[in-house]
């Protein structure tokens, strides 16, 4: 498959004229998703899609055109359109194609051929088993919001007139289930997740138990009274918050004045035991790939080392503007989009403290398991945020009453500086790049609630 794709790209790139750069990026994906509900399969979907995006650079101007019609005529038409589009934009020194660099082998495989040998019926049975395990997970579980099994195989290839020529294949498989719980009129939901390269790496019971435990924990939640208490973030909440941090650590955000980290390189932003890492080569991370969306090799970039900011994430364009080198963070949503700049596997390096010990060490605190409105509630420039939250109070080192309709207010700099303990449990979220978080104890944030809830039911 990759040879066929590379052949098509070669033909496009081979038409480059003097003074013109052409890059062609091809994607060929197959994907299956099975959803189960109430003990039966609710839906199965299967996909095959492929397409090519052509980028043309001339006189520091760039144009882009994509097509899913891979006939020679259609590809020629796409090239002609990309050339025309390249006459419209403003010239920018960042509009250059990546130069070829040696791509080293990754430590482990991204592709497990077993993923393509799983019979459709086994995928269906897996989703049903996940639904069943979740619904049978406890007396308070009222159902699931679709238990899912999904897998995909993606072949990506890139060629350019500068000499970049590479392809790779990656398989992914996941389980995702949302458990619904109810007791005395209180209803809650929470998800459980398992990620791997193929079905064999997934853990049905663990995903179900996680969803059940997290949903049950929130039952009977009440609005808390306002207090300044230590807050313990659940690993998935930490991962979501790190998404805001990572967004501010892209060089583009800095260059455009949209980063709260602008001008802070060399500053101590977090305690010395905190390390933030972006690692596109981490094969255990969902966003692993040998090279990025421009063909630059991916790498391990330490953004915060001993709590001190080291630098920013780059793709070719941002590096050209800063006289820096691409860190292999060019991203491609699909063939339909030109390269963007995004984190890959972005995570906080896990510490030594198991989550149970971390919680046991908190006298009075708030265990934050869900945040709502993080994206809208956080100002990416100032770093101020005020987000809705649900979770459980911690009293004397143990989970106590559940909390809902709470607000956590603070700022990203305050949160980073307030990190007190990093848990040992690293979990990745499979979307938005791939953010990885641990259980995290943070001091100095404000937990607020409204007036006591009236019964609206």
């Amino acid at each position, binding site marked *: 498959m990759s040879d066929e794709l590379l052949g098509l790209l070669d033909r496009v790139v081979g038409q480059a004229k003097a003074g013109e750069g052409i890059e062609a990026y091809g994607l060929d994906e197959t994907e299956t998703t099975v959803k189960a509900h109430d003990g*039966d399969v609710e839906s199965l979907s*299967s*996909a095959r899609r492929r397409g090519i995006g052509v980028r043309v650079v001339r006189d520091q101007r760039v144009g882009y*055109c994509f097509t899913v019609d891979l006939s020679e005529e259609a590809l020629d038409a796409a090239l002609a359109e990309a050339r025309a589009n390249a006459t*419209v934009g403003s010239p920018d020194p960042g509009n250059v194609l990546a130069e070829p660099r040696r791509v080293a082998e990754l430590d482990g495989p991204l592709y497990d051929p077993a993923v393509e040998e799983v019979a459709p019926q086994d995928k269906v049975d897996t989703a049903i088993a996940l639904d069943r395990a979740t619904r049978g997970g406890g007396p308070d579980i009222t159902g699931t919001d679709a238990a899912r099994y999904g897998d995909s195989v993606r072949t990506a290839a890139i060629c350019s007139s500068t000499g970049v020529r590479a392809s790779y294949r990656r398989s992914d498989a996941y389980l995702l289930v949302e458990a619904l719980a109810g007791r005395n009129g209180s209803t809650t939901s929470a998800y459980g997740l398992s990620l791997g390269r193929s079905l064999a790496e997934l853990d049905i019971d663990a995903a179900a138990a996680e969803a059940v435990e997290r949903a049950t924990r929130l039952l009977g939640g009440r*609005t808390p009274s306002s207090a300044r208490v230590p807050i313990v973030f659940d690993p998935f909440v930490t991962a979501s918050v790190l998404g805001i941090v990572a967004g501010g650590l892209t060089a583009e955000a800095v260059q455009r004045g949209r980063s709260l980290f602008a001008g802070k390189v060399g500053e101590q932003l977090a305690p010395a035991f905190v390390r933030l890492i972006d690692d596109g080569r981490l094969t255990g991370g969902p966003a692993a790939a040998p090279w990025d969306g421009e063909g630059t090799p991916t790498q391990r970039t330490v953004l915060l080392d001993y709590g001190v900011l080291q630098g920013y994430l780059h793709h070719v364009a941002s590096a050209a503007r800063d006289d820096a080198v691409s860190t292999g963070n060019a991203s491609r949503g699909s063939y339909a989009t030109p390269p963007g700049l995004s984190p890959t596997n972005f995570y906080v390096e896990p510490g030594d403290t198991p989550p149970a010990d971390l919680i046991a060490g908190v006298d009075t605190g708030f265990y934050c398991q869900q945040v709502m409105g993080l994206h*809208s509630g956080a100002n990416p*420039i100032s770093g101020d945020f005020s987000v809705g939250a649900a979770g459980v109070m911690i009293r004397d080192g143990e989970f106590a009453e559940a909390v809902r309709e709470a607000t956590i207010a603070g700022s990203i700099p305050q949160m980073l500086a307030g990190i007190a303990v990093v848990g040992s449990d690293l979990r990745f979220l499979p979307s938005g790049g791939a953010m990885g978080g641990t259980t995290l104890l943070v001091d100095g944030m404000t937990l607020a609630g409204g007036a006591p809830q009236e019964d609206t039911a």
Partner: protein
Amino acid sequence: MTRPDLDGTDLRAILDAALSTGGQFSELYVEHRRSRSVAVDDGRVEDLITGLDRGGGVRVVSDGRTAYAFTNLLTRDALLEAARIAAAGVHGTATGGVADLRTVQPPHTHPVAREPSDIDGPGMAEIVTRIDEAARAVDGSVRQVGASYSDTTQEVFLVNSEGHRHEERRVRTRLAARVVAARDDIVQTGLEAPGAAAGLELLERHPPEDVGRRAAERAVLMLDSRPAPAGDMTVVLAPGSGGVLFHEACGHGMEADIVAKGASVYQGRRGDKIGSDLISGVDDATVTNAWGSFGFDDEGTPAQRTVLFERGVCTDYLTDRLRADELGLARSGNARRQSYAHLPIPRMTNTYILPGDDDPDEILRSVQRGLWCEQLGGGQVDPASGDFVFGVAVGWLIEDGQRTHPVRGANLVGDGPAILARVEAVGTDFDVREGICGKDGQGVPAGLGNPTVRIGRITVGGTGE
């Protein structure tokens, strides 16, 4: 045109192959989408992106189960293969077969006065430049302007085993401006993003200069804001600003897939009085040229107007074919999909709180102390509990019936049914906004609208005293 190069015999063969394992219903959805977009950022016109996406999906339904397979190869063989893959996902006993195909015309159309193709790449660049320049002219504190123009021309072709066959062409255009203003340590952002299911006539209703100026004025205004107070208070939603709250906190829970799963706070509440007498709301895909409108939904049901709440009474859910059958309800024409790569699911179209009888000025004057919401930011809702949280992008403190000063960092926290119950006044005015609604990984254009609405009490999360 969209129609794949297949005759009636081929289409029947595909629909038949999909039913070969005893499915009750099969469908072929083919889409052809041309899209164009250009953006300006920091005064530079960025990549002009154009492209063609197309593909076809075969769906089979059997006893509430769905199997779907799609491909972006549109040959008879590739679509037959997709039909066979989909058929393998169901095991039914139906023997109905495929009815004779007949072409159906849409009951509502959304005519395009001026085709997007009337402007070329340089013309698109000129539009975003006009937005940029107008925004910069507003005030010296404007630091950055991001603006975009985009259009899509989507052609849909659909046939199903009940013999339905239709073609529809949907054109959408949108402008967007995002302006950052800064003074001393304060940085604020203003947004404006009008769109329509129409062509370039959008530019007459929303001249690019107006779009840039409105976004910039919001950002500049918020430079003078103070931190929002926290606590419970009366909230007034400005026309157009509160539609998103209604969409998130009430609309999603009325979507029949969420109801069918038992994950909606409105489940089993049809006919119940949930809200105040003053509140009525609809979902309406028939509004001519509105952002969320269409002729047919994405499984061939004609566009409709559905009443969600009538004077506070929970009325009708938003259904697709599957959920309508499951719950024994009528098809409301709300099956939508992001593209051929997605299954149709119940979605909102244009979701509006309907105007009432109160004088908007009087509504403001009636508030002793409260929060005026000029523009809400994004929000999130848990449909199971109805709990929501919304950022207030542009807000004002109300004191003694006057808007006194802008406030920042406010969040509205609450739950849908409680908010409906606490509506105390509904204005005679009305305005709309346009957004992209995300659900189950699918984004679709969603229209939002509301009059001035006073809500007795909402918990406001803020950082001020």
